[in-house]
């Protein structure tokens, strides 16, 4: 309870400092919508030239794109501060203050920023899913919808865990941003159906950096019933549990080795 109260107090403070740059925030929001619009336009232009992409129609590809934004947006809302930790804050000796406070450092990092831009992503993703779904004939079973919800929620947890583990390495190496970037960029692979990739990439996206497991497989399950929805839900939840536990373990282990750069 204390932590909930503390979280909201911190977030309120961060929002106030954000409002200082109101015009820039508006430009950033606009730029975000524009950037997604451009990516979608590019996909649309490509699909105008061919009948279907590896057997997937325009609306199906749009559905993949829209759904891929769900877990990414949810993660974006809460854990944006990890980028700063990985890229700058450890290197600049800016983390010391967190070690002096009687609250876990990881909690403080999460309480540092709340990114309302994530809502824009969420709204755009839902709109895209709605438009594409209304143009598709899908048989909505309870299980298939459930696996999408599980994929979005626990997928977000998996992304956050990956980010926590990568950012934690900055405690040892001073700067782990680029590494985080490399891992995170694989999310762009999950914007398309797994069917377009060769087998080794598919295995990689399901078993190693599992963006495919919680984005592509659930959508495939809804559109074509390729997997058993309950088994898939269970695998995603299990995977999220393992990733979460591992990331907290990595964070604690790295945190102990933290040495201030003092500059």
């Amino acid at each position, binding site marked *: 309870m204390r932590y909930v109260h503390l979280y909201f107090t911190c977030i309120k403070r961060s929002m106030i400092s954000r409002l200082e740059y109101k015009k820039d925030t508006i430009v950033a929001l606009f730029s975000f919508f524009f950037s997604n619009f451009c990516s979608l336009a590019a996909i649309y232009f490509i699909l105008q*030239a*061919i009948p279907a992409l590896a*057997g997937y129609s325009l609306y199906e590809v749009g559905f993949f794109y829209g759904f891929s934004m769900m877990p990414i947006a949810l993660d974006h809302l809460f854990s944006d501060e990890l980028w700063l930790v990985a890229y700058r804050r450890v290197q600049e000796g800016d983390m010391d203050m967190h070690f002096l406070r009687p609250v876990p450092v990881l909690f403080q990092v999460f309480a540092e920023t709340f990114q309302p831009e994530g809502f824009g992503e969420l709204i755009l993703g839902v709109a895209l899913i709605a438009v594409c779904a209304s143009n598709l004939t899908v048989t909505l079973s309870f299980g298939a919808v459930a696996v999408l919800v599980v994929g979005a929620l626990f997928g977000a947890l998996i992304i956050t865990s990956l980010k926590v583990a990568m950012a934690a390495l900055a405690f040892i190496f001073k700067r782990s941003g680029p590494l985080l970037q*490399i891992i995170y960029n694989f999310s762009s692979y999950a914007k398309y159906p797994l069917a377009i990739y060769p087998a080794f990439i598919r295995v990689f996206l399901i078993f190693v950096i599992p963006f495919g497991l919680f984005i592509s497989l659930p959508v495939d399950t809804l559109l074509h019933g390729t997997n058993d929805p309950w088994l898939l839900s269970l695998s995603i939840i299990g995977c999220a549990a393992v990733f979460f536990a591992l990331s907290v373990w990595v964070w604690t282990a790295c945190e102990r080795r933290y040495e201030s750069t003092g500059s």
Partner: protein
Amino acid sequence: MLKKYKPFLRAGAIDTMTYRFNIMIWAVITVCQVACLVFLWLAVYRSSTGGIDAEIHGFTFRDMIAYVVLTTVFNYVTFNNDTLWFINNDIKKGTIGNYLIKPISYRGKYAATSFGSLLTMTVLFGLPFYTAALVTLRCLGFLPWVTFPAFFAHLGLFLLAGLCASLLNDAIAYIFGILCFYTTSAWGLNSLKGTLISFLSGTLLPLAFFPAGLRNVLSWMPFAGMSQNPVLILMMKYDLPQSLRCIALSAAWIVALELLAKLLFSRAIRKVTVQGG
């Protein structure tokens, strides 16, 4: 005796290594991104009615891969530009006041800085990366082998077009920098500029894929000259008159954008808000 220099030796070695490390990281990120695009295009061409050997909007699969690789190298070498951030810093730290009383042009200062950066990037990274990319693409059959005179003629045109692209990019960065006078922060403007250029310049997708109306408008805009046209010149897809036409259009736009920048700057400078020194 030599012992006391050991820390410097170590520092120097580590410095160079971090530098190399940065390039390596950039290479890994880029290879992952390019690989994703290669798989996407492979799927696109396999799914097309003509199969993998089809030509879509003037591009075969081989052309497209060469285009993706060369635009990636081109953007890395040409668009290493910090003008927007420099101006934003000048506004934030209040140092812009100092420049206004110095007998040099504010615009000239950053144009020169960008040009210096372009030279270093071209010699240090452009030379090895373009050579590696062009030789590899030719050996793998993604680009046709050509005679030396034809190649060097296009190389010369390409360098000219590349210079124009860099100047256009710098002018646009400067204009966005001036807009920082109004927003006081550069993050949003910088990402807007990036998106705008990557979409309209043909980096994201060659403009040939765009619908006819939009394509016609864009053929008169400066953006195609910033990425698509130079790369297509290097790939020898444009003949001499076509290349010269592209370069002339870019040159005209450079003049127009610089005039616009001058106008904007003289208006914006009246309402400088600095956030402290």
